[in-house]
């Protein structure tokens, strides 16, 4: 520990040291996943399959970046939960947004296309 003398008041200054191979592997994996999600569009996949693939590739990429590049994998749980749990709450906002959008769409439909309802 080169900085041992610089530590004070129990401040544990320790860097994240990992072999370079893991970064290169994750980099490669991110390229593969990006190509895959691009191909979803390129081959004009539609419907639930398209959505499933897009969301899966998106979450895998996000997970790899956060876990390895941002070193979340090696942090203590107190830190990981403090950052990741609040983001899960965004799902509630997502749900509210979807409900609101459906309702707005319905009222617009009623207003613009009176004949249909």
């Amino acid at each position, binding site marked *: 520990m*080169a*900085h041992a003398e*610089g530590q004070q*008041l*129990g*401040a*544990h*200054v*320790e*860097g994240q*040291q*990992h072999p*370079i191979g893991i*970064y*290169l592997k*994750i*980099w490669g994996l*991110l*390229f593969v996943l*990006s190509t895959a*999600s*691009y191909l*979803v*569009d*390129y081959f*004009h996949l539609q419907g639930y399959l*398209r959505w499933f693939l*897009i*969301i899966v*590739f*998106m979450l895998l*990429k996000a997970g790899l*970046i*956060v876990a*390895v*590049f*941002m*070193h979340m994998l090696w*942090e*203590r*749980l*107190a*830190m990981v*939960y*403090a*950052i990741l749990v*609040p*983001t899960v709450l*965004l799902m509630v*906002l*997502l749900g509210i*947004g*979807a409900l*609101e*959008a*459906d309702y*707005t*769409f319905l009222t*617009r439909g009623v207003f*613009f296309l009176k004949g249909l309802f």
Partner: protein
Amino acid sequence: MTQARTSTAEPLTLPEGIQGIVSDWSSDQRAFKNVPWGKAMMWIFLLSDTFIFSCFLISYMTVRMSTTEPWPNPSEVFGLTVGGKSIPLLLIAIMTFVLISSSGTMAMAVKFGYEKNRKMTFILMLCTAALGATFVGMQAFEWTKLIVHEGIRPWGNPLGAAQFGSVFFMVTGFHGTHVSIGVIFLIIIARKVLRGDMDLERPGFFTSRKSRYEAVEIMGLYWHFVDLVWVFIFAVFYLW
């Protein structure tokens, strides 16, 4: 339960798992162990930024789901014509690869930083900045194409739903601003690394805190976050 610590000779080990969370949060000094406070603060900033971008993306979803006008097809709008053949989303795909590559070089810069390899850290951070600048340049090209050639404006466009323009400029503009700020700070930190500030623990000109290599990792966190946001924008805006 807790292991009894009878000897002061062996180093103190922190408990893991749920017990670790409880003990960290209830400890007297600081909740985030093994993390320099600058890094913890960057994480908290990134959390707040996550909420900002989520607000944008969720309102985009709401707007797109509720519009009765047809939404312009991003696959065609962002396509490029190469050799007389139109390739869908080509520009966006290249931008994605550029940004992911910049994340890769940044991750390695952090590694070399902790090894105190000034030259490699500097080179890799400069590569990251160059890739980031390339990304912003391509975004500028994309904006020009959309504004000048396609006639897309924040208040309307000839392709369909008026909301397309406002959401597009808002979301990609905010993201591009993040990338631009990142490029500026990458160059600042890279210069500090090359000059040897981290080795000399030279006080920062603004905060007067000792320069340390953890600054490279904190910079990296911000940069990876920018890449992370792009992952979500790419998926929900361009591939929807």
